[in-house]
């Protein structure tokens, strides 16, 4: 099976991660052909999940489809790379009914448009007008500081790093002063001894 896949569909080898998990990286235009091939010939008939990872440094999304055999003993991870701007991907909701809700979730979180999916309304967010949240350019802490306020701290609230630095400098200065005082005391004791002699 691996030889046929590599010769017809993929550009790299099929990776065996565990005894029940295989992974292959293919180009986007061979995606539905490979899923049909596995569906018809090797009983990979169940779609488990569709996930997406944002590699902003390399400028693409990595879309992964996970399909499982009918006796649930083996899972195949099929990964393709698609662009980050104006992404349009073909939908699998006619072939697998559960793909509709998974694609709706990805559309809301990443802004990927699935052609052929007839229900792409909002799922978890309500009246959201900013960038799709799971994209890497959306900074969640900046968003929170801009739109919401926290409770003010207590009056004796101090910044931990600044306070530790101050206490350490204080301790060091104290140690220097003690050392100088000891040296002065030693020197004066020595001088008294010499005078006494």
């Amino acid at each position, binding site marked *: 099976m691996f030889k046929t896949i590599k010769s017809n569909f993929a550009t790299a080898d099929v990776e065996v991660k565990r005894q029940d998990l295989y992974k292959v990286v293919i180009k986007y235009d061979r995606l539905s052909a490979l899923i049909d091939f596995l569906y018809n010939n090797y009983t990979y008939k169940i779609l488990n999940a569709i996930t997406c990872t944002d590699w902003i440094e390399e400028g693409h999304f990595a879309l992964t489809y996970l399909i499982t055999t009918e006796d649930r003993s083996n899972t195949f991870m099929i990964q393709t790379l698609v662009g980050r701007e104006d992404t349009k991907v073909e939908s699998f909701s006619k072939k697998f009914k559960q793909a509709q809700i998974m694609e709706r979730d990805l559309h809301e979180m990443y802004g990927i448009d699935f052609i052929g999916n007839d229900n792409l309304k909002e799922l*978890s967010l309500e009246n959201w007008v900013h960038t799709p949240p*799971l994209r890497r350019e959306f900074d969640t802490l900046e968003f929170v500081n801009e739109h919401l306020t926290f409770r003010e701290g207590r009056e004796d609230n101090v910044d931990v790093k600044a306070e530790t630095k101050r206490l350490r400098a204080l301790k060091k200065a104290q140690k220097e002063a003690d050392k100088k005082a000891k040296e002065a005391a030693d020197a004066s004791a020595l001088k008294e001894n010499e005078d006494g002699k």
Partner: protein
Amino acid sequence: MENKHITIFHGPQHPGITGNMSVELDLIGETIQKATTHVGYLHRGFEKLVERRTVIQAFTIVCRICVPEPDPNEANFAAAVEELAGIEISERSKYIRVMVLELSRLAAQFLWLAGQSGSIGLYAVGQWAIADRDLILDLFEELTGARVYHMYIYPGGVRRDLPEGFLERVSKLLSYMKKRLKDYDDIFINNSSFKNRAIGVGIISKEEALANGYVGQVLRGCGIAADVRKDAPYLIYGDLDFEVPTELGGDVYARALVRRAEMDQSVHILEQVVEKMPEGEIMVKMPAHRKFKLPKDDTWVKVESARGEFAYYMAGDGTEKIRRMQVRGPSLVHAYTLLENLLVGAELSDVALIMNSLGICPPEIER
């Protein structure tokens, strides 16, 4: 006189709903014509929060993804990090992890009993079930320090060793449970009012269940023996002896019988674990927390929770922070693809019954 066509919300503030979600129903009289699920009331953006955190910082918030049953989340997170970093854990920590997972599964089945019986009005079963579940939570408090969110299973092993005399207390609880579970048969499973309400309601066919990717007791109630612990064994389940119960009805009563039989199997597994617990260390030597880098790779791990197959996808990118963590709980497909089709033609008073039997838990749908 004609029946009116109205639209109501079986909504978030409702005593008959499993968690904080809502179902919008189009009714004619009392028969449902169309159902639409609405979730999103509990969306906290976990997958974005985890991207800002290192492994030990993310470990503290991962258990809060699924509220009734937090331990499969911790086990999945630890298994994914261990697979990416190539860490092998010791035998004793594997046995302890299986014990924690099975106790958590038993506690979640008691919570299901309380919900399912409350939806028809048998409130006495709920009082018994929550009190019995509290005895299991007492054991958890002794072992991990907290009743609900344990934060105990960490990549590399478990955080604390078993206290002295803990295994005797577990054995005493198991012998109490064996006698007590027979009482639930008399009061609930063989109760004629439950049988009259539940037989023939919410039937799912076998082909549809396989093709659409349903998991857990939905498949087992239709006659397919599907269980991650037997299909793709993880931890030490390959060495233990247990069965996967199935029923052929496909309706609410069949799923209830399956879950009741699973409680017996959990007690059986726990007895074997208590007997065979080996000695050894509980945590392998891990690199320093601030320098623990994950390689640029991805993986997919899964665990059998009380409601079905729970899976995680994790990807690292060579730094200390986690690049992507996707949670695929069993309720995503059940709440949308299954529920919207199953409720068409049902009566309004059966909505709570059907939702409880499918085991829909909203926090893991929208994370």
